[in-house]
């Protein structure tokens, strides 16, 4: 399974004695790598440091945590301040999981067809699905708001899950079909020749091979669904608001007063840590999924 083109170096080094020139080059590469590393980590690090800092010293600029406290985390979960962050976390999990489940359920078959079968209208189908993923979500906002108000769905979970399908499903189909097209389907043929039924061949041979791809796609779909803000902001009530909405409105729009940044950074840290752990664990597959699908959440 050639999951990773990305693991081959762009330029394979030609073997030759290590010259000063080469050392200089490798020094430059490490310098570049350091810059990229700082790019990726510094703001995230600053969020964590701020979350751990006593709110009175929130604008301290020492690059390491000072006045360490867990107060911000307590404040984040404090429901007396008009926000219910704990509930928002639950809501995001519900919305993200339901969206992912529906997208996978519908998407797997289409992805299989696009990856495995040659049929008339294939380009039309993949073009349609791709254009759906590029569709500005803001066009859906007003009609859906009206529709869901008419149906009495405003503020219910389905009012956020259904619109999420519009961009998670195309992404799912794209990523899955590119994973599927790399599976060794000859094994299925071989199993059939050895006497397995079509269903047995699929279940015993192909399904286990496809499982990691489906799992990776699920992670990407979940991250995309949890990331959504515009529609959730319009269509959720206080009780069903996901984390993105909760964090955006944390501290309210209280003009002159400085928002409770310590608590906001704590909330941000809590949301981000599980995502970061997922990314670290499945880095390779996530990258191949992202680049294969080429669709950003």
């Amino acid at each position, binding site marked *: 399974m050639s999951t990773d083109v990305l693991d081959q170096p762009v330029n394979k080094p030609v073997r030759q004695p290590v010259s000063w020139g080469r050392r200089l080059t490798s020094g430059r590469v490490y310098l570049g790598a350091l810059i990229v590393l700082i790019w*990726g980590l510094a703001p995230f690090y600053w969020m964590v440091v701020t979350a751990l800092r006593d709110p009175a010293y929130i604008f301290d600029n020492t690059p390491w945590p000072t006045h360490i406290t867990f107060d911000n985390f307590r404040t984040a979960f404090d429901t007396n301040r008009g926000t219910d962050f704990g509930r928002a976390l639950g809501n995001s999990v519900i919305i993200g999981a339901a969206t992912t489940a529906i997208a996978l359920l519908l998407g797997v078959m289409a992805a299989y067809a696009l990856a495995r079968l040659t*049929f008339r209208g294939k380009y039309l189908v993949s073009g349609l699905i791709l254009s759906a993923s590029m569709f500005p979500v803001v066009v859906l906002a007003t009609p859906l708001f009206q529709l869901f108000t008419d149906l009495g769905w405003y503020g219910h979970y389905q009012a956020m899950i259904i619109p999420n399908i519009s961009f998670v499903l195309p992404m799912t189909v794209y990523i899955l079909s590119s994973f599927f097209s790399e599976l060794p389907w000859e094994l299925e043929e071989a199993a059939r020749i050895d006497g397995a039924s079509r269903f047995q061949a699929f279940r015993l041979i192909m399904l286990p091979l496809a499982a990691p791809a489906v799992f990776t796609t699920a992670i990407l779909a979940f991250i995309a669904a949890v990331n959504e803000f515009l529609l959730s902001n319009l269509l959720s009530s206080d009780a069903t608001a996901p984390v993105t909405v909760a964090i955006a409105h944390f501290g309210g729009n209280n003009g002159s007063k400085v928002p409770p940044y310590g608590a*906001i950074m704590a909330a941000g840290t809590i949301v981000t840590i599980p995502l970061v752990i997922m990314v670290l664990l499945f880095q390779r597959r996530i990258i191949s999924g992202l680049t294969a699908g080429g669709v950003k959440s």
Partner: protein
Amino acid sequence: MKSQAPQSNSPKRRGPVLGLTARAWLFVAPVLLALVVVVGYPVVRAVIMSFQKDAGIDKSTGMFVEGGSAGFGNYTHWLLQQCTNSLGETVSCPTGNGGSEFWAAVGVTFFFAVVTVSLEATIGLGMAMIMGKTFKGRALLRAAVLIPWAIPTAVTARLWEFMFQYDGVVNRVFGTHIVWTVEGWPARFAVIIADVWKTTPFMALLILAGLQVIPEDVYEAAKVDGASAWQRFWNITMPLLKPALLVAVLFRTMDALRLYDLPAIMTQDLGATRTISTLVVQQSRSGANSASALSIITFLLIFAVAFVLVKGLGANAVRTQEAQREAH
């Protein structure tokens, strides 16, 4: 698959009940149906709504009226900045009315798109060159680069809003005293910086994938022929990278043109960072039908840009991906 013929142990293939094309369409049907419901229906409804008047007080009678047909009124409201005055006459919109903000929002949106996408493509290319090299800790670097991408945009917005505070770390590090999230141009650049931080890594990964399908021997041959590193970059890497780069640019441009989360959260209702998307959402609170017209205009604008990119530059996403897939 329930629709398959009854299982048989004979290795001989059974002819399919349906033709291959029909069967394939059966597989993709659920997805197409779902997209018709969640995308097609709202779009049709938005088009219908865009030709209806918003409910409101009829200025001539003082009565509350339910709208009715608006013709192209909602479109001219935005495109020609036409409003209806108290006498029912068509006049140009006064300052502060949504209609008068349309072209400014278009300008801001395109400014953001051009600046962010060019920065992301340039920096992303640099990052991709570094990440493509072989060195210890390469996997770690690639994971680290995914972190900005994995953080939800709403969290990114609050994080950068905090860093851009007057007493915040950005002003401290650079010794400046800029009110980043309130003043026009600083706020625009604050949004741009946050967006570039978040999405450049994604761009870098797309470019890296493109870099790695370039065959090694082309470089070897050029080296033998005495091409310098710079010549190899301009005459080999860039032309061969073009399809992948264009696809990345296409995806990112589409994304940048619908930018909403960052300006809406970081700078709230600031006019200087009002994109078309934030204008639509703002308008939808006061008049759903004129908001629909605006959203249709947004869609047509983005579609036009995609069309130009695909036709003019040959950024064919579907075919390039197929080609990349076959190259593996």
